[in-house]
């Protein structure tokens, strides 16, 4: 039971998904989540996360583990990881951003939201409503007025020429 003075026994936590699956994680890595940090301060070691399903929790743990080992030398490596991390479907991203928000992992929220912004910025109003399930509560007259007020924002303008497979 006695641990040697050379090796520190790392405190482990257990995260439990909504589907009751448990994952062991080092406390020092898990506290990247503000929510988990609060619960650790209240002496929880088993953290139930009923809002996060297993698949999403696995991805989040992967992110936290990668960012937990951040040093000055592997910045590029982490940048690459982040770039690949957001190459996911809208459905996956939605689940991830809800979970990141619930878990209060600021860097992940920013990463996911920037990715979302880049993917939705050129979409139409109708597409936005569909993707996020937002009902249109304007009357036809009100909607026409909003369009008219910001007509310039709804205009496409000239196409730009793209020479590369962008």
């Amino acid at each position: 039971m006695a641990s040697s003075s050379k090796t520190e026994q790392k405190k482990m936590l257990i995260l439990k998904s909504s589907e009751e699956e448990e994952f062991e994680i080092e406390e020092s890595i898990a506290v990247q989540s503000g929510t988990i940090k609060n619960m650790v301060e209240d002496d929880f070691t088993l953290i139930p996360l009923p809002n996060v399903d297993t698949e999403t929790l696995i991805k989040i743990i992967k992110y936290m583990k990668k960012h937990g080992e951040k040093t000055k030398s592997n910045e590029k490596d982490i940048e690459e990881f982040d770039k690949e991390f957001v190459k996911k479907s809208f459905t996956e991203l939605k689940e991830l951003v809800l979970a990141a928000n619930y878990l209060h992992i600021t860097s992940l929220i920013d990463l996911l939201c920037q990715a979302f912004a880049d993917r939705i910025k050129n979409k139409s109003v109708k597409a936005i409503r569909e993707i996020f399930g937002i009902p249109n509560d304007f009357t036809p007259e009100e909607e026409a007025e909003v369009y008219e007020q910001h007509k310039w924002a709804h205009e496409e303008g000239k196409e730009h020429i793209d020479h590369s497979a962008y």
Partner: protein
Amino acid sequence: MEFSQADYMNDDSEGWDDNSPTIFKGFSSAITTQRHGLEKLADYGFKIDAYQNHEFPTHIIREGDKKIKDVVKEHVLPFLPAKSLMRFKAVSKEWDKWIACPLLSHQQSFSCKSFSGYFCQDMKMEWDTETMFLSLDHSTSGVPCPALDFLPEVVKILSSCSGLLLCQGSEKYYVCNPASQDWKMLPLPQCYHGEEPAVALAFEPSLRNIEAYYHVICAFPMLGQPIIGFEIYSSESNTWSCSSAYCTDIENPRLVGGGFYMNGVAYYETKSNEVLAFDVKVEIPAIISLPDQVGRHGSLTQMEGELCYVAANNECGNVFLIDIYQGMEMILKRTVSVTLGPDRSFTQACKVLPCVNSDAVAIQSGQYIHFYHISEQKVESIASSFTMGHGKKFLPYTNSLAMLHELKEP
């Protein structure tokens, strides 16, 4: 409130609904999974006390109930460029109201930093300056009136920074945000700035401070002497003040108009190979020598957050050789050879344009402006409405909703 053993053990964790606090679900699982011996059980025992003495944080429960559209509204919208945001006002009444809110404009001015395109002016005729906005992507970035007609007079654009433009009419300076069409006329300066003033607009949106003030720094030659003086305008005090610092080291004090600001320093180009730098905070000038061998078609620019000088040459066909010099010492950091645009047999004159918040090198050649992204090694091109020639100014612009704050009268 007392937790008896009976309550949570009988809790049906299957049929829980959204309104019951998370506390119960956690509880039953804590007791049923008795695993690692006495220590773990003791942990759980301690947790029971914790539940009794502290409330399960309600703000955590509330975050869990948030729907995707709420999270998007709160966290994604600030990353969108102004044109997309204005378009999305038509999504719903809630979004219409929220997007008009100063708090969102403030968040967006801080979060949306991406390079959106160029404001350009053709200065060939004094009385007829044609002003345009060349957008990198017309569906996401733009302004209602690129010609800046909302200003009281025709202006020349002198400098741009974080979504704001510094312009000059026949006499007066104006600072404006072309996306929101908010503008302010500056008081007249005390010193004479010259026919084509070397002025830089300095503006850094701050997350914490909704009232982020801007500065205008003018470098002007003292008449008849090889000395450069500086005059600084602060929007906080709404006044100009002359700096006690002077630059006497400059060989050829013929400043080119305009200037740009980056990381606390204002930079002014001269007609020779020198660049005048002025640290705004401590008011200390310095001279940067540009590499001798480069031609006159390079440009100071910002790459990866650092000051760079980029020179490019069309070697043959559509092959360009790009040299990137970095830092105050202007050390050659990288040379790349890249193909830009359609293949052709002749070479063309080209010009490097400045960029901000981007890892791209911008080169105008023929009818296009090509953006070569260094890290991804990809090229993106837009049509340039102007043909090559002197007297055309390209100012990099960020489609932000930054607000102009001024000192409120008591």
